[in-house]
Every structure is written in structure tokens, then in C-alpha cells.
């Protein structure tokens, strides 16, 4: 079995990372804004105040601009496993595809069907009817996130499936284990609430712009109050759940947590410093600069004062027996695939849990053949493969830190804004308002770095411990990959340009743009457009 061209693997990874990161520019805002729209409309239905209806419709319009591109780029994600990660899809489709299919049935259908009524149904539905539709959109989008993160949770800490040598793939065997995987559950709440933070910051930032320019003051002040309080609560929840995720990683993905903390050697004492800043060097496997706070790391990660945290060098060394077992497992499996004899099946089953490490070793085997390793070649193969078992420490360390520093910044900003909003002193603090405006993209960036931490920290695995990333790709040629990469880059660049243009345009116009929206159609060639004074009534 020849390995896939490493260039193709790298290009496939690049394409997946680019399309996923790009998709995720829009998802957090969708998750957060739907919830905030539901809250605003609820206030409107209860109080009957027009300003809350204006708020729902105006923020709804910006939501729509964002939502469209989120849907478009989400299409790519659903198909990219098949188009570029063929071995992955074959190997875990039986368990990984299921949450994706359920997401479509249970969540995405609901979200997408009702979003049409949310935009077009204002005059056709009763007030409570429209409110129910808005809630269903919010519920649908967040349920979508749940099932997607259950699928991702399987890649992070595979639960609910086992390998079947007769079908050469992992097969689903426990729905409960898959769905209630602690990693999936914690990550779902962490990620979707991070979306709420993005939605709150978006509304707060644009409203701050209105206060700065002295327009739509009541609208802006009410929007800021809702957003800052909601944002503060959400950010605190995100930080708490991030801590829970770190503890889970300590238990199930030790290589990731060690890379996040830039930890090369195992800690032995409670005074081990938590590194604020460090320069991890992946070549020399050490940090060339370390600035840390003593006594923080151990309680932070392990929630105790004396549990050791394994360092990367020790984790590498500890993988040696697993690599040796893995090679035996893969060789027995290959034998079994042709002979179907009981002896090789028994050998395989003995070493089955380490088979992923055998796949990992194949790259370093002479002629990529695990059957033909001489004893003389073994030490070099082991040494290389051990080093392959850990992720890129520099990337994991820094993406985590950027995400976390941003998180603490959000807590402070929302707290200060909530305070001044409740005291009705917002307009005095122009510098603070400007800061809010400039912070609009920050929560989305934090989410992106969170994704990089989770997925770069998962390497070298596509499915942690079971399938290395370089084995998971489709066997395309480089030309195919260049074709698709160039196309995605061109299309997505055009999209983001159009998106930003429209966002700025409609944010600048402000909520009143609703009353004049018909004017945007006046350039049409129909004489109907020229007639003023049509009642602002939709449809018939």
C-alpha cells in the first residue's frame, strides 16, 4: 500500500484548514445573533415597543448578510470529507457520518426552513407566530453546532466505535458513548457560547459607532445594554468551559495539553510555572524563552496540587512500545486481509489498540513497508516515529494563548460597558466606544484560534490515536489540488469583499434604512418602481 504523495496531503490539509477557518468566520456570529434576535423579539412581543421590533429587523438584516455566506461555505464542508479525505471517510464514516446526517435531519432543515419565514413572514404571521419562528431558527442553528461538535468530538477522543477487521473500518457500537462524549459536550457549550460572545460584540460595536456619530441614540443605548450584559455572562461561561476542556485534554489528549502549555519535561512539583510567554522550538524540542507564573500550572490543568503533567519528551519516549505493537498489529491485519486466518486475527486483536501507531510508523519504514524492517533499521524508525507523535508546539502554544488573552480582554470590556450602560454614562466615554468598535472582529478571531488550538493540537492524528492525518487523505494528484485551491481562494476572496462591503454599507445606514429600503430598488427598469406612495405592504 503506497502512501499518498506528501505534497497532496499538505495541500489537502491547507485546503481544509482554509475552507474551515473561512466558514468559521461566519458561524459564531450566526450562533450568537440568532439568540440575541430571539431575545429582542421576545421583548418586543411582551412590551409592544416599536424600538425592539426595529432592533430585531435591523440586526436581522445584518444577520442575513452573514448567514448567506455561512450557508454557502458550509456546503463545502459537508462534501470535503468525501472529496479530499477519502480514507478518513471510509475508515470512520460509519460513526462520523451519522452525527452529520442527524444534523441535517434535526437541525439544519429546521434552521433553514424557518429562516425564510423569519425574513419574509413579518406580515403573514401573528406576533407570537413570528416569535416562535425566530426561536426555531435559534434552536436549529445551535443544535447544528451540537451535532457538528459531536462529530468533531469523535476525532478528538474516539468513543462509541471499534475497529472491525472484516470491513477495515471503525464501526459504530454505542450511540450513548458517541453523543455523551465529554469532549463533545464540553466543546459544544464552549463553542456555541463563544458564538454568543461574537454576536454580543458585533451589536455592541456597531451601536457604539452610532453613539459616537450621535445617531439612533435610543436604539443604540438599548442594544448596548442587552449586548453588554449578555456578552459578560457569555464570556464568563466560555472561560469556565475552556477550563473544563483543558482538564479533559489532560485526561484524554496528553500531547495536546503539553503542547498548549509548552511543556517539554514532566512536572514534578506544584511550583511548576504557567508560561505566559515562551518561544517553543520544535527542532531542538525546547523553549528558548520562558516567562511564567509559578504555582499556577498544576492546579490550572489538573485541578489538584500534586498530580504530575507529562511533558512532551516523556510522552514521545512512552510511545515506543505502542509503535512496536502497532507495527505488529498492522502486519497481522494485512495478513488477515488476504488469508482470513484465525492466527493473524488473534495477533491483530492482541495489539489492536495500538494499530494507529503502526499506521504512523509506515511513513518512516524503509520503502514504506512495515513487513520488511530489519533490526538494524528499527532504532532510527522508532526515533523518527516517536517525534512524529506530538503536534507542532509553537503553533499550539501561541494559538491557545491568543485565544485566552482575548477571552480575558472580553470579560473586562463587557464588564466596563455593562457598568457604564447601567449608569447611563456611555456617551461620555468616547475612547471606550471606539475600542468597542474596533473589537468587533476580535471574538471571531478568538474562535478561529480556538479551532487552531483544537485541531493543530490533535496532530499528527486525524482520529486521535487511530488514524494519522497523512493516511486519511484522498489519493489525488497535485494538479487537482491546485485547481481546487485556486478556485476556492478566488471565490472566497470575492465573497468576503462583497460581504464586508454590504456589512459596512448597511451598518452605516443604520436602522432607519428599513423605511427606505424600497429606494434600493428604484433603479429598476419597471415603471412600477417610479411610482411613489405604494403602501409599504409586502407581497399582495
Amino acid at each position, binding site marked *: 500500500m503506497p502512501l499518498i504523495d506528501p505534497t497532496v496531503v499538505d495541500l489537502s490539509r491547507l485546503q481544509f484548514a482554509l475552507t474551515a477557518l473561512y466558514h468559521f468566520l461566519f458561524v459564531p456570529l450566526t450562533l450568537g445573533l440568532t439568540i440575541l434576535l430571539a431575545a429582542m423579539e421576545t421583548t418586543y412581543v411582551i412590551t409592544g415597543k416599536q424600538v425592539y421590533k426595529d432592533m430585531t429587523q435591523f440586526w436581522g438584516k445584518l444577520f442575513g448578510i452573514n448567514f448567506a455566506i455561512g450557508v454557502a461555505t458550509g456546503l463545502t464542508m459537508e462534501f470535503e470529507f*468525501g472529496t479530499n479525505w477519502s480514507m478518513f471517510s*471510509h475508515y470512520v464514516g460509519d460513526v462520523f*457520518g451519522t452525527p452529520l446526517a442527524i444534523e441535517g435531519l434535526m437541525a439544519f432543515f429546521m434552521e433553514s*426552513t424557518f429562516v*425564510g419565514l423569519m425574513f419574509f413572514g413579518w406580515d403573514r404571521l401573528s406576533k407570537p407566530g413570528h416569535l416562535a419562528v425566530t426561536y426555531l431558527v435559534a434552536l436549529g442553528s445551535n443544535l447544528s453546532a451540537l451535532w457538528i461538535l459531536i462529530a468533531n468530538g469523535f476525532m478528538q477522543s474516539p468513543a462509541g466505535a471499534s475497529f472491525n477487521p472484516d470491513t*477495515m473500518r471503525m464501526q459504530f457500537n454505542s450511540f450513548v458513548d458517541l453523543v455523551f462524549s465529554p469532549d463533545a459536550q464540553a466543546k459544544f457549550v464552549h463553542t456555541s457560547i463563544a458564538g454568543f460572545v461574537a454576536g454580543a460584540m458585533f451589536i455592541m460595536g456597531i451601536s457604539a459607532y452610532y453613539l459616537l456619530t450621535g445617531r439612533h441614540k435610543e436604539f443604540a443605548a438599548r442594544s448596548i445594554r442587552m449586548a453588554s450584559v449578555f456578552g459578560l455572562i457569555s464570556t464568563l461561561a466560555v472561560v469556565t468551559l475552556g477550563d473544563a476542556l483543558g482538564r479533559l485534554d489532560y485526561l484524554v489528549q496528553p500531547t495536546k495539553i503539553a503542547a498548549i502549555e509548552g511543556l517539554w519535561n514532566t512536572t514534578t512539583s506544584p511550583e511548576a510555572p504557567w508560561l505566559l510567554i515562551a518561544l517553543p522550538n520544535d527542532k531542538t524540542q525546547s523553549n528558548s524563552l520562558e516567562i511564567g507564573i509559578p504555582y499556577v500550572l498544576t492546579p490550572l490543568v489538573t485541578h489538584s496540587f500534586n498530580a504530575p503533567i507529562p511533558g512532551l519528551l516523556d510522552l514521545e519516549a512512552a510511545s515506543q512500545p505502542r509503535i512496536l505493537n502497532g507495527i505488529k498489529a498492522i502486519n497481522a491485519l494485512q495478513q488477515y486481509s488476504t488469508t482470513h486466518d484465525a492466527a493473524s486475527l488473534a495477533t491483530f486483536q492482541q495489539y489492536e489498540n495500538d494499530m494507529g501507531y503502526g499506521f504512523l510508523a509506515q511513513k518512516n519504514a524503509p520503502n514504506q513497508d512495515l513487513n520488511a524492517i530489519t533490526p538494524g533499521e528499527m532504532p532510527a524508525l522508532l526515533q523518527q516515529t516517536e517525534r512524529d507523535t506530538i503536534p507542532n508546539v509553537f503553533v499550539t502554544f501561541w494559538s491557545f494563548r491568543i485565544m485566552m488573552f482575548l477571552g480575558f480582554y472580553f470579560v473586562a470590556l463587557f464588564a466596563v460597558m455593562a457598568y457604564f450602560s447601567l449608569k447611563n454614562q456611555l456617551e461620555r466615554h468616547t475612547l471606550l466606544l471606539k475600542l468597542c468598535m474596533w473589537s468587533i472582529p476580535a471574538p471571531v478571531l478568538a474562535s478561529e484560534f480556538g479551532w487552531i488550538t483544537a485541531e493543530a493540537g490533535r496532530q499528527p492524528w486525524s482520529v486521535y490515536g487511530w488514524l494519522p492525518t497523512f493516511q486519511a487523505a484522498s489519493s489525488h494528484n497535485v494538479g487537482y489540488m491546485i485547481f481546487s485551491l485556486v478556485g476556492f481562494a478566488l471565490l472566497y476572496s470575492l465573497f468576503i469583499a462583497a460581504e464586508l462591503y454590504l456589512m459596512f454599507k448597511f451598518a452605516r445606514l443604520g436602522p432607519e434604512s428599513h423605511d427606505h429600503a*424600497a429606494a434600493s430598488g428604484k433603479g429598476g427598469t419597471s415603471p412600477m418602481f417610479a411610482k411613489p406612495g405604494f403602501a409599504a405592504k409586502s407581497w399582495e
Partner: protein
Amino acid sequence: MEIYVALKIIWAVLLGVLLTGLAVMVGMDMGVGTLLRFVGKTDAERRTALNIIGPHWDGNQVWFILGGGAIFAAFPTLYATSFSVFYVVMILLLFSMIMRPVAFEYRSKVDAKNWRDTWDWAFLISGALPMIVYGAAFGNVLEGVGFHYSWTGQYYQDESFLSYLLNPFAVMCGVMSLALSIYQGGTFLMLRSVEPMYGRARLFATCGGIVAAVLFAAGGVWVAHMNGYVFTGVVNPGMAATPLGGPAVAVQQGAWLNNYHSYPILWLAPALGFVGMIVGTLALRLHLKVLAWWLGAVAWAGTISTVGIAMFPFLMPSSTNPSQSLTVWNSTGSAYNLGWMLFFAVVFVPIILAYTSWAFYVMRGKVRPEAVANDPHSY
């Protein structure tokens, strides 16, 4: 094992249902997108056409996404292999599909002729191309596809993508698929528009119906003479789902008609397809719009089940290594997985159909250009 065989067959049928739902609902929107420039002569008319499917296209599109997800879960190896083997075509499909949501939301938000004209072209491409690819995929699969597997289940491609793009039979299937979608989209435009758009939509829908019927007949003759695939080894439907080490498969001319020769009642499927296309076209000439729309759905159901029955149990035969062909028996998920998926499908598909119908009911009635222009929420 008996339960596993039943689950495999149920999921093969559900795959057909899903592909039909996708073709009817997405096809309708694609038809409207294709016709946009021709049915709408003015900007106001084009906006009207967009707002006719405006409240529904997003929900309809989920059929496409669910198609991807359900094939991934229920037929993992088919998903892994077909999407990769057809890589260049799939990527073209994705490029055109992802233009569409953006085009809907962005087109009418800027009042400039060039801007709107550019997005109108995007609608044409993102409507026509996916439907051609959709039909061509059926054509390519009928003819067999070049691939084989290594012992781990990794697929290897044995043919260039050009053989899928420049395959005359596949192109014909693609054009037929486009014609049916124009029929479906045109019929829906008739339901919700007024003159002069109504008359134009009726003309295009009529052409779509006639072209589809002619190509469906031509396709039938072609398939009768093309190479089909048959098992020559011992078949065990309850086999473990793997394309490796399966029974021997032979290539025989005309073999795709074997199932029809064995069970003549199956000829009902192609008959249903023809009835849908011909009676549907007559119905829309008589202004029976609702009937015509449903007959369009019948035409799709007939066409897709005709292909499914012809190939059963094959799903994607391998022309270069026939014994590794993907079939209903060797490319599904595990029994446990198919069971859970069936549970979710049984619970949620009726709910989806109920709220989709409700959404169409809420938005019923004619859409007039002047109302579109005055509604701040319209596309």
C-alpha cells in the same frame, strides 16, 4: 443477518427517496435560477422571480446537504469513493453551488446595473451547472467508473476526470436533468407569478417537459445497448460491508435490463416517468399548475427509480476492477448504524415534510413586482 439485509434494502430505497427529494426541491430552485434571465426581462421581474423562491430556497437546499450527510453515514465507502473519483466535477459543482446563497442575499442589496447583472449570471451558472452534473453523475455511474482499492480500503483512481466530463451519454443525462429542473422551476413560477412572467415560464416549462421526455426515451434505448454489470460469483447479501474480496462480476451488453426482464412489473417505473413528463406537460398547457408541479415530482421519482432498478444491487460499478464494484450489499454502514439512522429518519422526515408544507402554505399566493419593490425584506 436477515435484519442487516433488510436494513441495507431499506437504506437503498431511502437513498432513492433522498435523491428524488433533492431533485424535486433543489431542482425547482435551480430551474428558476437558470430561467431568471429569460423569464425576467426587467429588474423588477427578476426580483419577483427571486422572491418567489426567496422564502424556500434555503430550506430546499438542505436536501442537498442532507444528501451528502446521509450518503456519508449510510454508505460510507460510496461517499468516500464517488466524491473523490469525481473530484474535478464535484469541485465544479461546489463552486457553482456556493455562489447561489450569496447571490440571493447580495444581488438586490446594491442598486447598480453591473452588480445585479453579474449576480444574475451567477444564478444562471449556479442553476444550470449543478443540475447537469447531477444528471451526468447518474450517466457516469451507469457506464461504470475506473477505480480500485488497496487492502486498507483506500481507493485509487484509474481514469482521468476528462472521461467523466466528455462522456456523451453522461452529458445527455445531464441535459435531461436540467430539462426536468426547468420544467419544475417553470411550473413553480407559474404558480406564483402573473403575466407576462407567467406566459414565459409556461413556455420554458413546456420545452423542459418535452425535451426531458425525448431524452428519457433516448436514454432507455442507449442503456439497452450499453454494457451492464452482473454477478457471476456467489452473492451473499448479508456480507460484511467491504468492497474487498467480493463475488466475481462480469460485464455484459444489455445487462442493465436484466431486472426488468426478470420482473416485468418493474416496467412501471419508467412508465411512471413518462406519464409524469407527458401528462405534466399537457396539464400545464391546460393551466393545471398544481397538478403539473406534482407530476414533475412523479417524473423525477420515475426517472430515479428507473435507474436504481436497472442497476440494483449495483451502486457504482468499477470498470477497471469489476469485482470491487460498490453495491447495496458491500458499501453500507454497519447494522447498528443503519438502525439508528433509520430511527432518526422515521422520526424527523415526517416532521420536516410537515413544516416545509406549512412554510409553503404561509407564503402561498401570487408575488407581484410592485409588492417586491416595496417590501424591505425582499431579495
